């Protein structure tokens, strides 16, 4: 008995229990493993284009070709309005930000299943993996964003239809919001798919569907004019507010609205915290069901 008392006088460094407190998010653990976080980012970045000749140039090629394709299909063939803007610029603006979201979402949404072999062997805060995805996608986004800026400046000089404005100050905030939205949704999906894989089938085409429910290839104003009865779908989508604000900042068109943006912000915050709680709950024992 005396020994027992002695033992508990000195504090334990770590107590493993069947369940974490839902609010303990393990931030201190994440800080301890921050080197791992950056090494994962580096690994993702370096390993993608190993043994390719063009290397990181693929980062540029991808959005350019997509923008051209959209310009031909949606702009020329389908004749969807780009609000009087050069189609390439209009599509690149939406695609660049959208890609950041969709890449983050699709890669974080299989965190548990894709990393099961590492997770089964060694412990580190599981959150490191989705966080590293957000960061490495941020780098990729940064590169593509740079490309967009170059194109944007070109049109800014040659074209008079573009009216950038002070909303530009919001851009970093919009980018962060988009990242957290993808992350939040991704970790919820990965947590729900460890035991029942059904949801996984939904992710790939769900992302595609979501793109058409966001004002990427068409302006929100077009929906307001032609199909006001369907506008609620776009407004319910938190991405709409972010994309419209982004387009408005750079191009001066679109329906920028503080109400829409506040909704996107609140939605993201709630989604992210729900995601954290679910993820936190699942990471403890997912190895038994994955």
């Amino acid at each position, binding site marked *: 008995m005396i020994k027992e008392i002695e*033992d508990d006088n*000195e504090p*334990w*460094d*770590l*107590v*493993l*229990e*069947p*369940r974490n407190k839902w609010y303990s998010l393990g931030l201190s653990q994440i800080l*301890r*493993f921050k*080197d*791992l976080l950056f*090494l*994962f980012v*580096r*690994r993702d970045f*370096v*390993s993608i284009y*190993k*043994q390719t000749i063009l290397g990181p140039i693929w980062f540029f090629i991808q959005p350019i070709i997509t923008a051209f394709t959209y310009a031909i299909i949606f702009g020329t063939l389908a004749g969807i309005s780009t609000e009087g803007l050069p189609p390439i610029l209009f599509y690149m603006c939406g695609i660049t930000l959208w890609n950041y979201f969709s890449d983050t979402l699709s890669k974080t949404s299989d965190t548990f299943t894709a990393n099961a072999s*590492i*997770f*089964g*062997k*060694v*412990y*580190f805060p599981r959150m490191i993996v989705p966080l590293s995805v957000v960061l490495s996608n941020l780098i990729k986004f940064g590169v593509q964003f740079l490309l967009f800026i170059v194109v944007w400046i070109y049109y800014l000089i040659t074209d008079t239809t573009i009216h950038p404005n002070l909303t530009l100050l919001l851009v970093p905030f919009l980018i962060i919001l988009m990242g957290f939205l993808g992350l939040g949704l991704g970790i919820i999906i990965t947590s729900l798919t460890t*035991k*029942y894989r059904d949801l996984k089938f939904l992710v790939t085409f769900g992302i595609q569907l979501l793109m058409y429910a966001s004002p990427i290839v068409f302006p929100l104003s077009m929906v307001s004019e032609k199909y006001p009865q369907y506008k609620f779908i776009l407004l319910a989508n938190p991405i709409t507010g972010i994309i419209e604000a982004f387009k408005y900042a750079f191009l001066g068109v679109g329906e920028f609205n503080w109400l829409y943006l506040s909704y996107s912000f609140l939605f993201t915050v709630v989604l992210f915290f729900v995601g954290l709680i679910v993820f936190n709950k699942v990471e*403890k*024992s997912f*190895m*038994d*069901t994955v």
Partner: protein
Amino acid sequence: MSKVVLKAINVSKQYRLGQLGTGTISHDLNRWWHKARGKDDPYLQIGDTNDRSAKGGSDYVWSLKDINFEVKQGDVLGIIGKNGAGKSTLLKILSQVTSATTGKVKIRGRIAALLEVGTGFHPELTGRENIFLNGAILGMTKPEIASKFDEIVSFSGVEKYIDTPVKRYSSGMMVRLGFAVAAHLEPEILIIDEVLAVGDAEFQKKCMGKIKNVAGEGRTVLFVSHNMQAMSSICKTGILLKNGLIDEQSDITTCIKKYNGLFSESFIGTTSIKDRLNRAQSSGNVLFSNIQGFSKEKKTWDFRFDEEINFQCDCDVRDNSDGLLFYMALIDPLSNEVLTNIKLLVKENALNKGEKISFTITIPPKTLRIGQFLLYFAIGDAKQTRWYDVVDNNVNLPTLNITPVDMDPHSNSGKFSIPYKLTINN
């Protein structure tokens, strides 16, 4: 008194058997419904003990049940048990890979696990990059790895390839690099699982030396292996797990002895050679149907030192075969082969399907030393081209016990017992 650095309190782990499918969702809903009303989880009340050979009635099984133990600073604890006794589950809980169903584990200091070397190696990255990545996965910080980098590289012995992607490495080189990183991990508590089964002899020796050093530095080590020789040379204390329960918790020698004894125990209790579980898997033309030890007086597996030892083997010929060769080996409790010279041609000529063969091997008295031996029986064709059947302690063969006849203090030591004779010359 050294302080306790790890303490497990009532640790239990439940697993669900069978596949996850639509049936599980009803259990999940039921569980959730109980929880919502503030009641206990209904499925925690049930569950069989963990005995893989007996078919249980429940879909749930307790892989570990009420495990309690303490580890003091500087202890080197060996965890032993048969396959499926719960060793790996315990390690997984301790290393935080999964969590216990109920119970708590308290830990002082950093804990790191070495369940498999080279975890997280990325094939496209170079050896250098992978050292940093792997080190970080195991919980080292970048400056820590950088300061030990040269040591790690020279320990691994792959200097030449350090800037080559690891996908070009041989599997042996990969393992060397992985172990080198892990060996330079310096947590207060280190968990090691069977990593020694890899690499060539020279490298294995290096690894064992390193593990011994780690233990010598006063760090705490938890070690799991089936290699009893390694166990007994490294560990001081031991835990023997059996069907998810702690069967023995004392010094390592006692645990190893009891571990080897487990095989004879399960034989008496449950299956005979004839009904053994893996029988369907043996495709041999001739199979053992029974093996029985006997002395002049009775059927037994315990013999006095001065008794003649006999084994009667009965075999069924299941398909025509080319003669019959018998081979037998004796293995000591630390898994070293002691005797391998018994090889006899039982039948030279072809055997017909349906025949029954019975023969007896006799070992003269005073030839085996005092102690326990594991037995290994095999039968094959006359030309030794293939084996038909093998029976050893994995299929519930009892251990052979040789007991002393007098109080000779030397009877427990030594390796050989050979016939000798004394001639007095004057």
